[in-house]
């Protein structure tokens, strides 16, 4: 057998050189971050990472935690389980971080959680919304509400508006499918009269919408993962002459959707957490430091709050994982950009309300608060 010596020599040298590199900042408090920094979901990762960095930079400017600077060790989870597991393993066993902020995609959080749990490292996710995350472990928290709650809010809205027949087109991604599954659970049987799933990134919906024209429905729910896909759904929905109202979730609530879809989303509604951070000093600070967020300002606000809360916990109880976990469990109402919140026994956030938003004059505007009936 011929050994490809040049290739191996080259690779070995590169691997050894890279592995030999050591992170600086031995005296710093290390906070890990896991999120998609490359790939289709990179916009979410970059926004939330910038939210964390803003919080850390602001704290370091004030002298850090008890005189120690805070260092963010960021790892690319690529929105996949195996990459997030590798990232978590490195953060826990090599970098020895005190806490991890992440993952962002629910798949990242679920794969990284057992490693954080085994290492006794607290992990707090700023935007993972899958109901599965609730059972991820004692050290796992999130300051973003579960889709299980948002679907309750949406189902309640349908009841209050007398909406009985819903048409849904869902993108086949973890976020959109988690929401679809939760909504199906909340609605009465037969309420979803049109339920189609499309491949991620699909842009042509004309065939599906032609079939939809044979169905009687009260409202259209474009359940997409990204504003670009939702814009395509809405533009073609209106092009085909449908006049029914449309409603969606967080993904809709972005300026990008209005830019992409224009008139097609006029009057569209969305059920979301409040536009946290919009019009505040946090938003101006964020834009000054990193420019306009690629997704919503509220995602960056959740990451910012997660980082600030974690740093507050470290300042109060030190870097021990179980002490930080207990501190977070005992938080009664942490006042952050997104509102005052605490955590339940599963580490799920409590206190983040929902609002009904509508596109008016080419801007998203809050038109009502939504009360959740959890009984």
């Amino acid at each position, binding site marked *: 057998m011929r050994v490809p010596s040049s*290739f191996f020599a080259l690779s070995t040298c590169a691997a050894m050189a890279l592995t030999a590199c050591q992170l600086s900042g031995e005296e710093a408090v290390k906070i890990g971050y896991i999120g998609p920094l*490359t790939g289709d979901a990179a916009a979410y990762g970059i926004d939330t990472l910038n939210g964390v960095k803003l919080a850390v930079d602001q704290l370091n400017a004030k002298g850090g935690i008890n005189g120690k600077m805070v260092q963010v060790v960021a790892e690319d989870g690529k929105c996949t389980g*195996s990459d997030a*597991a590798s990232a978590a393993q490195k953060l826990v066993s090599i970098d020895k971080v005190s806490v991890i902020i992440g993952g962002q995609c629910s798949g990242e959080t679920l794969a990284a959680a057992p490693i954080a749990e085994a290492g006794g490292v607290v992990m707090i996710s700023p935007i993972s919304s899958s109901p599965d995350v609730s059972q991820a472990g004692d050290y796992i928290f999130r300051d973003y509400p579960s889709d299980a709650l948002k679907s309750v809010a949406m189902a309640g809205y349908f009841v209050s508006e007398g909406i009985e027949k819903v048409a849904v087109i869902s993108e*086949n991604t973890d976020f959109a*499918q988690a929401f679809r599954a939760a909504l199906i659970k909340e609605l009465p049987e037969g309420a979803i009269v049109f339920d189609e799933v499309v491949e991620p990134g699909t842009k042509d919906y004309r065939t599906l919408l032609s079939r939809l024209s044979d169905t009687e429905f009260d409202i259209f729910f474009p359940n997409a993962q990204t504003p670009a896909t939702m814009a395509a759904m809405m533009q073609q929905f209106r092009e085909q002459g449908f006049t029914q109202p449309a409603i969606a979730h967080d993904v809709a609530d972005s300026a990008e959707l209005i830019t992409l879809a224009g008139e097609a989303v006029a009057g569209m509604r969305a059920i979301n957490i409040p536009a946290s951070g919009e019009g505040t000093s946090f938003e101006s600070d964020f834009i000054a430091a990193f420019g306009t967020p690629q997704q919503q300002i509220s995602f960056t606000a959740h990451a910012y709050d997660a980082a600030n809360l974690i740093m507050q916990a470290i300042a109060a109880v030190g870097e021990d994982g179980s002490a930080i976990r207990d501190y977070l469990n005992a938080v009664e109402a942490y006042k952050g950009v997104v509102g005052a919140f605490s955590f339940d026994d599963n580490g799920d956030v409590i206190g983040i309300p929902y609002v009904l938003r509508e596109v008016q004059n080419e801007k998203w505007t809050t038109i009502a608060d939504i009360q959740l009936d959890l009984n």
Partner: protein
Amino acid sequence: MDFLLHIIIMACLTLFPLLGYNIVFGKGKILHFGQEAQSLMAVYTLWVLVVQFQQPFLLALLASLLTTTMLSLLLAQLSFRLEPDGFGVMSIALHLAVLSIILNWQSVTRGALGIPRIPRGILPSSLERYALVVVLGAIAWYFFLRRLERSSFGRNLVALSEHEWHAESLGISRKKVHTIAFLLAGTGSMISAILFPPYIFLLSPLDYNFQHMIFFVMCAVAGGPGSLRGVTLAIFLIIFLREGLRFMGLPADILGPVQIMSFGLILFVAVCVRRDTLFPKQRTV
């Protein structure tokens, strides 16, 4: 140390299906790009039955073995009937078809959500012991394939890959030899299906997409198609290189793209070094 063990585990878990794939693609020179279809079939049959339908592990394992064998036989049959390029395209289509079924049959597979909380069962809970099990398994798999490679099966496979008509005229049965090769590839996928999801406690379809197939082809080419030792070394080096890039210490805002670009550049250099495998003759006009 834990991170090192983790990387070794990940490399070994990649080694099972990849060395099986190397028998078909590298040794047999069959233009097969459907290895991940076999992996998907094996892993989803097993864990859907265990987690979603609460069936006993051994029963699920048997069912998984059955479905993976059937898919391997289907692939073998297709390879007999199609021209090499046609089979290459067909195997890609088969992978995408299986992936599409898994993503869309949500009542059973949970689609894009994947299946969380995969149990470890009798597999060890500590990282060190898991690494020991996986490494011992990988060594056993390596030597099993090496023994096969040096047996009449290996020689027949090489003979068929070098000149099929001549080999068949000498009494070597293409159908028998290639069917065994596809079954070996399926066996590699089976072993990985048993060990990988319990390791990360999650079964996600994203871990079996076409990008992973490209990674398989890349490792097979970089290590020298058909070479057990070369491909094994390539798997370890490429995975260590990929994970080693996490230590570059770059600013967070450029970290992701620069890591990807660096990995691409290193692979480009590696492929240039290995161009004799990709292009047997220097092309001249």
